[in-house]
């Protein structure tokens, strides 16, 4: 697999700004902006390391580092990201997941990793948070429903976790499953989807440096409605590929069955790459509405691979993206 993106080898601790410093700097910048002097000061300010901080509703994730793979676009507000969710396990309305997330218990939490690998086993969430450097990845998110956000995820490359379990040469795909437990996920009491939610990636997609497992957003542990304690994020694919609250990862030789594609194969493909040229049968995918924008703001054009074409287009070279949508 060609490595298309340089990863930061390591960031010396001397380069990581102390939290107190950047927190106060961010607060200052925010207040300065309110006072209308932001523009002038921003020109004077050094190119600040500035992790985006949340409202403190969930525990902070320590030692988060920035990533060159982040977009510089203005992130969507924390409250919008956490009250406008598609997580049918917690209800099918957009505000249901936030209302029902209280029943989801995220500790203890284990992911079972099995299938075509040399070292199948389990890994706990605490171990995951300890063992993998948590990075801030500000990514665009494009939902198949034609709305979009910019989300400062905290997470780490999925590939780093997968490598630990030594996938064999037979491992061509990776299949994921969400927790199934109607007591914790009351939406599962109704069979809206074929529970548990299942998703999958081709091995090269899974190993791509842009593909992460997210444990937090805005510098804090994920709230339940956003897929706590750990979820997939594949920024060049429609949001439904980024499966939430994962309990199982399996290496497979054949393409795994995935929930939405299984439910409506004409409407949702296995690949589900963001593509303005291939419409959903029932609506156009040419434009997207930015969540948090003014009510009179016009929609924005949707970009090929959600704007990540430079990094990922090679994965699909020679494929007919109308057929493999």
């Amino acid at each position, binding site marked *: 697999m060609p490595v298309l993106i340089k990863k930061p080898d390591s960031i010396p601790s001397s380069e990581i700004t102390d939290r107190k410093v950047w927190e106060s700097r961010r607060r200052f910048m925010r207040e300065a902006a309110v006072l209308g002097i932001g523009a002038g000061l921003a020109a004077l300010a050094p190119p600040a390391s500035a992790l985006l901080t949340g409202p403190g509703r969930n525990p902070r994730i320590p030692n988060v580092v920035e990533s060159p793979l982040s977009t510089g676009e203005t992130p969507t*507000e924390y409250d919008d990201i956490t009250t*406008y969710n598609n997580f049918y396990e917690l209800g099918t309305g957009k505000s249901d997941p936030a209302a029902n997330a209280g029943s989801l218990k995220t500790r203890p939490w284990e992911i079972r990793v099995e299938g075509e690998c040399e070292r199948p086993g389990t890994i706990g969430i605490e171990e995951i948070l300890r063992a993998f450097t948590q990075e801030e990845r500000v990514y665009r998110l494009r939902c198949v*429903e034609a709305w979009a956000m910019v989300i400062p995820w905290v997470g780490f490359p999925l590939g780093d976790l997968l490598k630990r379990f030594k996938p064999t040469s037979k491992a061509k795909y990776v299949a994921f499953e969400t927790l199934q437990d109607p007591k914790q996920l009351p939406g599962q009491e109704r069979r*809206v*989807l074929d529970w548990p939610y299942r998703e999958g990636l081709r091995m090269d997609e899974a190993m791509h440096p842009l593909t992460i497992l997210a444990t937090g957003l805005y510098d804090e542990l994920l709230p339940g409605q956003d897929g706590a304690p750990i979820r997939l994020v594949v920024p060049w694919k429609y949001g439904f590929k980024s499966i939430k609250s994962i309990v199982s990862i399996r290496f497979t030789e054949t393409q795994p069955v995935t929930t939405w594609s299984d439910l409506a194969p004409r409407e949702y493909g296995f690949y589900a790459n963001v593509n303005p040229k291939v419409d959903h049968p029932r*609506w156009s995918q040419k434009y997207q*509405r930015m*969540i948090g924008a003014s*009510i009179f703001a016009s929609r924005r054009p949707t970009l090929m691979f959600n704007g990540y074409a430079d990094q990922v287009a090679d994965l699909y070279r020679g494929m007919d993206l109308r057929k493999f949508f």
Partner: protein
Amino acid sequence: MIRRRDAWLRFAIKPLVFGLCLAPFLWLVWGVFYDGLGPNPVEAITHRTGDWTLRLLLVTLAVTPLRRLSGWYLPLRLRRMLGLFAFFYAVLHFLTWIWLDQGFQWSAAVADVVKRPYITLGFSALLMLVPLAVTSTRGWMRRLGVNWKRLHRLIYVIAGAGVVHYLWLVKADYLEPALYGLALGVLLAARLRRPWFLTRPSAAARAVQRPRVTP
């Protein structure tokens, strides 16, 4: 007596129903100005105006069965207002789509009307509502005579199209459109000359019944 009842209708009941029908709209206007529509206000307005169109269509369709069941004539005198409010919310629903959602990109909007069955259906329902709204006046009732009733039977088609419009845009959870469909089904069934759930065995049928054989 009759005059007093008319006064009640004119000065109390009609303004009350008018206010109730307008309340969802005022609530939306409040939401626009006071950030009360959540993270995706355009979607919220679209959904709410759509919901209220369907609800008011169903309420309008409930008038006849209600009168038949109760012999109560009051709902009949409110029917025009209810129907016009359904039209009002349908127009708002359309305006939200063409203005806030599509940003007056007419070519894209036309393409959607042609290509997307659920939009085709919703738009057709709106077009069918127009002649009904226009001919809702006393003058048009008189002018059209018996044809007025024929024309206004379009409401059945419109309500059906509205429910299917909703059903076709849902991704996986069909519960709500199914409930609207069920309500519509009941209201239409109640119009049958002798709704099965209201029929009592007729005297003739009773006469045919054999006496129970007891040991």
